[in-house]
């Protein structure tokens, strides 16, 4: 093992300082991952309704989908801000919203991919496989970002809480 790698090994003091830094530094990683989840979801949102095959999408589901996407962006923005300042409850919400992103795969993309309709005299798939794969990837990426944000947030919040407790104890 060369010197550079030896230097990278974390001592107890380094670990203490790393946790202590959290008292003054924001949880930028969790926050950024949450924002990234919004970006992936936005890509999903702008890609999902592209269709050359008539009126299949014109149902109550399209309205619900739009409303959910708007709510998603708002909630995840709040999660981003909350996790930035080490609020653990926002991380729990992030897990739920992240899990819902995986559930969503089985609603619109899956339904549209399975559905067939008549266009220009032929029976065609509503959502062709390349588009289906793309939107599913967007949803998975968004969900992973949110869950990663939540896991990191929970870990950091717990470590910070423990550290603060130790500091309080040593002061007392």
């Amino acid at each position: 093992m060369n010197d550079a790698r030896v230097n990278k090994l974390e001592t107890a003091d380094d670990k203490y300082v790393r946790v202590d830094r959290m008292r003054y530094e924001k949880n930028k990683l969790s926050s950024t991952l949450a924002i990234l989840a919004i970006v992936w979801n936005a890509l999903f949102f702008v890609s999902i309704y592209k269709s050359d095959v008539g009126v299949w999408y014109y149902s109550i589901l399209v309205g619900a989908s739009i409303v959910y996407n708007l709510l998603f962006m708002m909630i995840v923005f709040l999660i981003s801000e909350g996790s930035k300042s080490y609020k653990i409850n926002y991380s729990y919400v992030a897990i739920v919203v992240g899990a819902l992103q995986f559930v969503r795969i089985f609603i619109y993309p899956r339904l549209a991919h399975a559905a067939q309709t008549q266009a220009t005299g032929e029976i065609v798939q509503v959502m062709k496989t390349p588009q289906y794969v793309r939107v599913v990837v967007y949803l998975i990426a968004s969900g992973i970002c949110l869950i990663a944000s939540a896991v990191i947030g929970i870990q950091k919040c717990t470590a910070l809480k423990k550290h603060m407790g130790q500091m309080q104890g040593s002061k007392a």
Partner: protein
Amino acid sequence: MAQLSLQHLDKIYDNKVQAVYDFNMEVKDGELIVLVGPSGCGKSTTLRMIAGLEDITNGKLLLDGKDITAAPPKDRDMAMVFQNYALYGHMTVYENMAFSLTLRKEDPNVIHKKVLAAAEILDLTSQLNKKPSQLSGGQRQRVAMGRSIVRSPKLFLFDEPLSNLDAKLRSSTRREILLLHKRLGATMLYVTHDQTEALTLADRIVCMSMGHVQQIGTPLELYDTPANLFVASFIGLPPMNFFQVLVSGDHLISPYFTVTMSPEQKQLLAEYQGKHVTMGVRPENIQEGGDIPVNVSDNENLGMNTLVHGHFKTGEAESRVTCKFKGWCDYKKGDVVQVSFQKMHFFDQTTGNRIVKS
């Protein structure tokens, strides 16, 4: 810590206006130098030239023997504290203090230790999570100083750091700067137009006027033996009183009074027999009791002292005078107080320079 050498520095702007003329000074390791003078005298320009924020037109600037005349500000290893704090409003105190080290890509753990150490010195530990807008003026200035301290620069530069603070806060922050200097043992250059700051903080003062250095010396030297009329009038509050007197035999004769010279004064002014000189007397060197009458105009009680503003009068001629008497006095307009001069300074009328023993 650092030694700074300023050799024949000139600053001439593009519009041919010269702001600084032939500035020479050697700053010793750990010294606190205060540049003082009225607005527009070139003191801030000099500091900015040292920091690298202004180009040096002529001359050399050496830091620890290394020529940094043309070096960019980032390579000079100096930290500057500005009058308006220059803090980032969207960052916390911690982030503000850590910012310069973050830009240098220092290890975050090292940055953390340095910021906490600086915050401890400046008593800012409990404020680290606050934004500058949540702090008082004094605390903001301490943050600005903290930002300098974390860098451990060779030289600290202060450009009128207390000017935005109220009188009480200015006094306490001034003391903090002094304690900081003693604690860090750092070399500091401090610009101010406030002579109280200069006298209380400085190891040495550089008094400037119109781009020229008028005198460099310890606070006591500038107060006790001002080099010329400008320094004499600028240092000291209230300012020195000046009178034109004729040196005649054993006496100094003005239209308003006659003073008998001591043997030392007679020897000092031997070359000026029969000539006029400018005599300066500080208000605190004028005492009640004597044979010189002062017509009182008004009276300012300061608690420990009383400032008595008045004038000498002979026929139509008048000359204003300010006296600083010990204790509480209740003179009214029109009262006549008999005074005497305890210590006098003499200046050549042509050059304005202090008359010294040849």
